[in-house]
């Protein structure tokens, strides 16, 4: 899932300071799971902003709404009527959701309440770890299910750099060297031969541009050229 964290309160308060009626819009999927931008967090933030606005002597009103996903039009449409009643929308979605909401309301200021951090996994209640860089060319079958592009800070794809110390990364003694883990995993699953594959330079041409993809069925329906 996509992991995000709330921006510092002072930054959010400053961003909304100039607006009288603000709708805080939560997102009920990824950012709700990571306790950053769901219905509950939207409510808490609205209450905090309300209090801060009163203390600063500003005439502001904060309402909340939450949709299932801000990255889907069918859910965003639920907000259309409420959005028209406000001077600004404060989105607690990931960066994709904020942009989709802004695209739907081009005349309204749409502000971001979160910093999107990574694509990751839920390690424990309240702890998430990055696992994927969405690089468009997955090496996981080769590398024992451990991503060197994500888990090695240098993204080395042909083996470790020389900086690992006792199997730990040169950037952080608390962090395993990704290639030590890859080697152990491939050894345990009897696939060490995978390591001998010389991985050529990555083709970044797709990831360099804003991503776009279409399902084959979509193309069949809407495009004369498949």
């Amino acid at each position: 899932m996509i992991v995000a964290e709330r921006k510092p309160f002072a930054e959010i308060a400053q961003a909304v300071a100039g607006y009288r009626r603000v709708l805080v819009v939560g997102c009920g999927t990824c950012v709700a799971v990571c306790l950053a931008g769901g219905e509950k967090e939207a409510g808490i933030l609205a209450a905090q902003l309300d209090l801060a606005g009163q203390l600063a002597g500003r005439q502001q009103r904060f309402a909340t709404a939450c949709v299932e996903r801000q990255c889907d039009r069918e859910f965003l449409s639920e907000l259309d009527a409420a959005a028209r009643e406000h001077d600004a929308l404060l989105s607690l979605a990931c960066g994709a959701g904020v942009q989709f909401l802004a695209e739907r309301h081009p005349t309204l200021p749409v502000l971001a309440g979160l910093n999107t951090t990574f694509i990751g996994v839920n390690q424990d209640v309240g702890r998430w770890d990055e696992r994927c860089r969405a690089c468009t060319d997955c090496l996981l079958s080769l590398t024992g299910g451990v991503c060197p592009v994500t888990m090695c800070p240098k993204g080395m794809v042909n083996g470790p750099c020389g900086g690992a110390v006792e199997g730990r990364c040169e950037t952080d003694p608390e962090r395993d060297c990704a290639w030590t883990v890859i080697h152990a995993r491939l050894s345990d699953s009897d696939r060490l031969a995978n390591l001998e594959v010389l991985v050529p330079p990555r083709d970044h041409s797709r990831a360099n541009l804003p991503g776009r993809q279409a399902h084959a069925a979509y193309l069949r329906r809407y495009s004369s050229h498949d």
Partner: protein
Amino acid sequence: MTSFAQAIKDKGFVVTAELDPPRGVDLGPLMALAGRIGAKVDALVVSDNQGANLRQAPWWAAHRLAETIPAEVILTLTCRDRNRLSLGGDILAAAASGVDNLLLVSGDFVSLGDHPQAKPVYDLDSVQALMLANGLAQGHDLNGQELAGAPELCLGAVLAPEARPLAPQLVKLRKKRAAGAGFFITRPLSGPDALKTFLQEAGELGAPIIAGVQAKNPEGVAAAAEMAKAIRAGGLAQGLHLSASGDPETLASLVEACGR
């Protein structure tokens, strides 16, 4: 064959010394140090933003050294600060300016240096950088497109004999060799035994090893010289790579003690 490759072959044992470009525009002190030690070594290795700390780009010092000092010059290029276009362009420019020995390295991560906020590049890893350079030497770029004039290059890579576990390092080493590394310079060694252990575990590399010997200060020169002597006497390496954490006087003493 470049003259550094020739020197390794002919002499059987070479001595190199590492020079860091200045943190400013004055190349004078580096040239003065090179003048003092240049006749006592076979090659001078110019570092590239050593330790991820900002310094003058190494190609200028490498070019000036190649023009004025009798020793060979080895230019270090990191993958940290360059994408494939920049690496390829720098290699061609270096060769055009008379520097055809390269040490191609991943590069210490940016968080270890003086600009931890920088975006690291690592478009290629060190194996792929060797593939790129090897291709250029054969007259084509990474996409197989022909060059107008190919450089003659001698390619080197870094070796970490003391990294543990060793098995993943050996995988990388074999790939570096396959990608065209003609010599290996080791990270600074803790002692001759570390190299001996490595050689027993790694077996034949098929390329000369130049053993990293570092003195961090003047007081460390004697011990480093002892280590160098033991490495040479034990036939553990085909050369020494002398470095001194950027201290010119320490490097000069170390070269005096271990150089030709």
